[in-house]
């Protein structure tokens, strides 16, 4: 029953209405921005108008900034770094997590290290990495790997630990061997949790690389906006940030889609570990 009264307290807007309001608001915001800028009420230095930004984005895509580095090259650099660090992390963390999760004592022994390593702010390792490996791709990829690693590891371990005992017993009743049990019951049960960890890790990787790219490199989305800052080009900074936002959005959309395809029975697992 819906309570009446001036506000429909439990009355949510329908999807259609919600989207409509959002689109109208968006258009209104952009239009106001453009108008205020043209009227000179907003400085072009601080907040360039949307029409100018569109041009800037076009230039980024063709001419590039700094010269000759188009936004596509920036994106490619960032993506490549994320990919390397992320996949490396997953390749080690998932098997490690599966093993650690299964062995109680090992998990207990590893716990303090894991807890502490997670508390270390990934980006704080950058100076150390630079001292060891110089300002190089290796440093950057390693940092991404570090950030992604712990998220995947902890979630994998949690996933193994929280496999429903009932399911294991069912597997036993059907005569599964130890390895059969592992591959047919434990692993699939763990997958949703592993996936959750992968999602979180990708988000972390993304955040880490943007920060890392702001120091000591000219190529990459983080580098792009940092360069823009050096030259006080707020239009490029904003455009670059827009690209970053779109990129971030794409990542989560793709991951959600993947999850729905691969794990239709477990959609919507909320993240618990960082």
């Amino acid at each position, binding site marked *: *029953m*819906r*309570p*009446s*009264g001036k506000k429909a307290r439990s009355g949510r807007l*329908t999807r259609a209405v919600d989207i409509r309001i959002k689109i109208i608001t968006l258009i209104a915001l952009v239009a106001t921005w453009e108008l205020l800028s043209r009227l000179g009420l907003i400085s072009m230095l601080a907040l360039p108008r949307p029409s100018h930004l569109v041009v800037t984005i076009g230039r980024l895509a063709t001419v590039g900034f700094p010269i000759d580095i188009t936004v596509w090259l920036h994106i490619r650099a960032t993506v490549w770094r994320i990919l390397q660090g992320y996949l490396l992390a997953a390749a080690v963390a998932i098997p490690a997590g599966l093993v650690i999760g299964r062995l109680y004592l090992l998990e207990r022994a590893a716990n303090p290290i894991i807890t502490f390593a997670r508390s270390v702010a990934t980006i704080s390792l950058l100076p150390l990495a630079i001292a060891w490996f110089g300002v190089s791709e290796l440093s950057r990829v390693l940092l991404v790997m570090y950030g992604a690693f712990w998220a995947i590891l902890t979630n994998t371990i949690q996933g193994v630990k929280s496999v429903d005992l009932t399911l294991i017993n069912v597997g036993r009743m059907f005569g599964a061997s130890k390895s059969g049990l592992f591959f047919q019951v434990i692993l699939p049960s763990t997958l949703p949790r592993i996936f959750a960890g992968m999602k979180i890790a990708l988000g972390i990787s993304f955040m880490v690389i943007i920060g890392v790219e702001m120091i000591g490199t000219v190529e990459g989305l983080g580098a792009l906006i940092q360069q823009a800052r050096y030259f006080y080009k707020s239009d490029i900074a904003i455009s670059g940030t827009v690209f970053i936002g779109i990129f971030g959005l794409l990542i989560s959309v793709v991951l959600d889609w993947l999850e729905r395809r691969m794990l239709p029975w477990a959609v919507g697992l909320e993240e618990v570990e960082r």
Partner: protein
Amino acid sequence: MAESNVKVDVQSITKRFDTEKSEHALALSNVSFQVKTNEFVTIVGRSGCGKSTMLNIIAGLLSPTSGTVTIAGEPVDGPGLNRGMVFQQSSLFPWLTAIENIEFGPKNTGVPKGERRALARELIALVRLKGFEDKYPRELSGGMQQRVAIARAMAIDPDILLMDEPFGALDQLTREDMQRELLRIWETRKKTVLFVTHSIDEAVYLSDRVLVFAPHPGFIKKELTIRLPRPRLKSSTEFMKYHEDIYETIGKES
């Protein structure tokens, strides 16, 4: 002129819902009845016959398309403190203890601390939950939560107690315990009660009068007065006759 012992006067209530497909679902059609002071009246019917809608209109949580509801002479216009309500799902405030939940109504009407604490303790004793005052809802069983809910509704001393399938979410045994409990509380404290359920047994066991609702559109198909002394025996012949009667009235509608 309404009789002075009429507590609730429902006149020609019609309720139309606009669903998204813009069909006009007629939930209630021209329903009229009265509840006398300290009477225990139950509305019974299948799911979807409009009984909860009716209760929500009386509660003031829904407004009717047409018709009026008057409580002790006052027309109903939105929720108010002259009606207490117990919901099917425990609606206790999870962040308050049992006794704080009960004190909630009086607190908001400005009753001073000492007085409302005393009142709350009295009600805790009434619903036989002494010793559980400082427990959070999460720590209480379903039956206990509903007892707190009843105490909370009674704390505002309403003219009428509205109960929307309050025992529906409980297991059978607890449900029967709660039915006895409710009667005991009602007989001790004398309140007007309007009860909604889909269980015929529950209706016959508890009430002075039973209003049998039928759906599409919702209306009162039959009104019965249960002339049996309490406590009633669910296995007695008279009880079963009433049960049969109501059961046939409800019929096999699709």
